[in-house]
């Protein structure tokens, strides 16, 4: 398929959702790296790897129609979210500290960026899941 034809072909809903997932993954990657640099001990390499895999999968889906990748992306994005949440004790600890107005289990100053990470990864995961129900080409 030539490039112009490839780009102009009739795209289905899933393709647009995949693009949304790709954008969300890139945005999350940037936000996550920002968070990881906010202090020592916050960086979990596997979160980065999983986000990169989501991005690569979504790029691949743009070029190659595949039924397995959407399932994998749903799992990978949720896996990234789980690993981020589980990082003890900074993630949930910072949220707990924020609401208790103390600095004990994490760093409440990171509350905003932690919530941003959660929201982005959750929306990314849900979008990835929803995309699996739709076709990529009309």
């Amino acid at each position: 398929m030539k490039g112009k034809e490839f780009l102009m072909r009739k795209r289905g809903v899933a393709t647009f959702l995949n693009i949304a997932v790709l954008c969300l993954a890139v945005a999350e990657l940037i936000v996550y790296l920002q968070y990881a640099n906010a202090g020592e001990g916050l960086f979990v390499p596997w979160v980065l790897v999983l986000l990169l895999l989501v991005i690569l999968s979504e790029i691949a889906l743009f070029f190659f129609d595949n039924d397995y990748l959407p399932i994998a992306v749903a799992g990978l994005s949720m896996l990234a979210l789980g690993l981020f949440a589980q990082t003890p004790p900074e993630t949930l600890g910072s949220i707990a500290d924020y609401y208790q107005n103390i600095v004990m289990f994490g760093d409440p100053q990171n509350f905003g960026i932690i919530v941003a990470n959660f929201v982005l990864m959750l929306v990314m995961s849900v979008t990835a899941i929803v995309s699996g129900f739709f076709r990529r080409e009309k």
Partner: protein
Amino acid sequence: MRKIGLWRGLSGLFVGLMVFVIFATAILSQYASVINNALGVSTTTSSLTGSVVYESDFGEINAENLRKLEAAAEAQTIAEAVEGTVLLKNEDVDGKPALPLDVTREKNVTLFGRATYSPLYKTSAAVSKADETNPDRLVSLDRALKEAGFATKNFFDSYADKKVGKGKYNSGYSYQFEEAVGFYEAQQGNLAGYKDVAIVMLTRSAGEGIDMAVDQSTDAAFKFQTKEQEKNSLALQTNEKDMLNFVKAQGYKKIVVLINTNYMMELDWFDEYGVDAALYIGTPGLTGFTGVVNVLTGKDGLSPSGRLADTFAADSLSSPAIANAAGNTPQWKNASSNAELKALGVNDLLQETSWVDVQQESIYVGYKYYETRYADAISGDEGARSAVGSSFDGGWDYAKEMCYPFGYGLGYTTFRQTISKVQKNEEDHSYTVTVKVENTGTAAGKDAVLVYVNTPYGEYEKARKIEKSAILFAGFSKTGVIAPGGSEEVDVEVDEYLFASYDYTDTKGYVLTAGDYYFAVGGDAHTALNNVLGAMGKTGLVDQDGNAVTPDKDAVYHWEMELDTQTYKYGEDGETLVTNRFDEMDINHWEGNDVPYLTRSDWAGTFPVKAAEVTLKSGEMAKLLQGEWYEKAADAPSTDIYAQGKSNNWNGVDNGISFAAMKDVAYDDEEKWTKFIDQFDLSELVLMTGNNFGNIPIASQPINLPEKWGGDGCQGIGGERGHFSETLTQGEAIDPCLYTSVLGCTFNKELIEKRGNLMGNEALFLDATVIWTGGGNLRRTPFGGRNAEYWSEDANLTYLILSVELPAMEKKGILGGVKHFAGNDQESHREGLNTFYNEQAFREGALRGFEGALKKGKVHSVMQSFSRQGVIFSSSCAALNIGVLREEWGFEGQVITDASSGVLSGYKAHYVTTMANGTNMYCLDGKAVGGGIVADYIKANDDGVLLGYLRDSAKNIAYSLSRSAAVNGLAEDDVISSVTPVWQIMTYVAEGIFIALALGSVTMFVIAKVLTYRDKKGERQ
């Protein structure tokens, strides 16, 4: 087609949900004990047949008695506020003192200051949340005034209106809390009819993890501010000044200021803004404002009797401690980055290793600095009079530096205190100082009697670097109500130990140096000092306002002593030598460092005007900082010397001894305790090291150790389950009472003991066995975030309070876990802060409060500090946890870390080293991760020494619990069984369901793909 899209979508959905549920289950499991506490769910069941060992003073645990208990707690809070509120200023208005207010003539009151709308009832830390959860019980200033008959005009609706008002506290900062003056100008038309009295309330808020800012420009939003004087958060802020000017211009008959904080604000502005009366009220808790208003009105004709437990300096940055503390804390000169630390062999996190607090002030914390420098200045010491350390132009001038000295407090009457007699009690090395208190005024009232001591300071002391405060608080009592013209004699017990000095250079022990000694009274430390100086024949004495004073010779008792290096040579057992254990915590112990400690022999040359520059050296210093230094000793025995290690089966043996059977077994009954501990499997020894404020149960035969809850908080019991069970309250949410922060200002031992008793009773109604409470650290600077949890800047006062409050708690079977051991007197960089000091300052200062609870009070629990002793993590400091605590003080009980939470990285994760150096238990490690790592090391290295430490820990924890309400109702043959909470079962079921759904949908998707492939293949054929 085979619905590939549907199965693909469902596969993605269920795979995603499966992953989500697996992580959720893991996270929930990680926090299971916290969740159980929050839900009030137990993981054990039992049918108790034994007797109640520790009974509530309010009778059976039921709803009716709970309400009686809480009513008593609320009454206690009012009493604390009445006796702890400190009257700072009370000028005459129309020929009469501004206070007390007469509600019949001064009924109409206007409330100014955002704090009147959102008062600070407590500190921001773990503490009772009753003020939030029980609003009907909460008494605000407005409510208390109205209940007392006043009509109040307030601006609460405007404060609440976010378009007009601001928001919540910005903890640690004060520049943006108060409204701009335009806010008040807009209310000007509403003030008519309420101009009898203006009450202005100001506050400062910080708390756990957050000090008050010494430089508010560190706050991102502060860059929009321009006024230099606002940088210090304890100074009066621009909006506050504008508001006070506005109030002054409105023509109120009286202006009364309430200081609603636990941080020693700068209060040198009362006269400038026409303030007629001012009171320090701390944080008044649930019902304390009723007490504050009782003081304002002089209810029942009584006079206020609270006295300051801290110094209020004109410049909160003028103390020598602040140069290195709070926001001024520096990093290592040569290691302030990861790369520099790693080059020295330190791999733990930068934020946990690089910050350094050299306590250059030595013993001169709070009044010990201001009063001693004053005494030396009066005595003609040019260094004391020099400009070094002066907050104002010219030489150092006490009257300029001081607002209100330690022990200060006015009343509606006046008293004269004189020393009638002094009796030495040879058997326990104490003195009974009999003080006559005469009411020389016109109102009835109580008076706090504070006894101070002056000890010799001369060539002997200087040669040995022994520092002496010119006036030292040593004991207190409180009179009953004395009618005008009446008098009362009170006996104040003074322990000689409290004015012995620790000589770390020569004797290496406590000494009473030879020379003249003076007991003195007079209320505040400055008056008492002036009385001593007068007795010494000094002249030129002034009060804190610079007025000449005439000392009272009858307020002083003089005697002489010979040099005594023997009386306090040994610890509680009479055998352990009390000697230097903290040489490594003196920064000058380490090569390349030469930092002076403040000495009164050279004020000008040693006063710290900026943070010390200190160097981290490679080798031993860096190794200790890195924190993982435990190694199995070459001659360590095999684990098979213990029951658990025999044949490496790691199981215990059944000696038929239940936990309940240990409740009367003495700590030193080695044979019985060994048999008891032999019964634990290694995994059960590990579980004993776990903690969720309360203990982890051992539901196995024959041990049967029940699960019990633990509370947290000094101003009232908090924690995940900080409310009484709804079964008990008949469905109503009731939290334990929130007490005041001014208990120390009452100088009333009965109230202090009553607080311990009531918190103990509340804990019994909560089914708890421990409260992590009773802060043993000092308010070393006005900025310390947890000042509300500590009692005073003075170590002896802290010692005396904790030796009363916590034993009262333990009498009810509730372990009083004093925290944070030791020297944890700032929140900035508290995690891993390298804290250096000389041993005299440490023993007479930071350690003293804990000594009151643990040595004198003989309580059974202590929580360690996040900070370090020198470069050694407090939880790894054997000198502290074993040498001082167990060997010198004879402590019998459990030692817990501060919140370690089962972390696997960073300085708290050196579990093997901490276990080997006196730590027994890991706080908020509900899964016993730390103990598990210790067990892994034991097994991998066949380390009998470390197994011995683990067994010792289990013994210490079990011993403490056996002296608590954990034994209530527990008979020797009662069985404790473990149960999995319903919520946890549901998570496992959900996990199984979603795994099955994911597998099923993926299988169906694959089948659909295969069938579709076959269909297409068939179509093509």
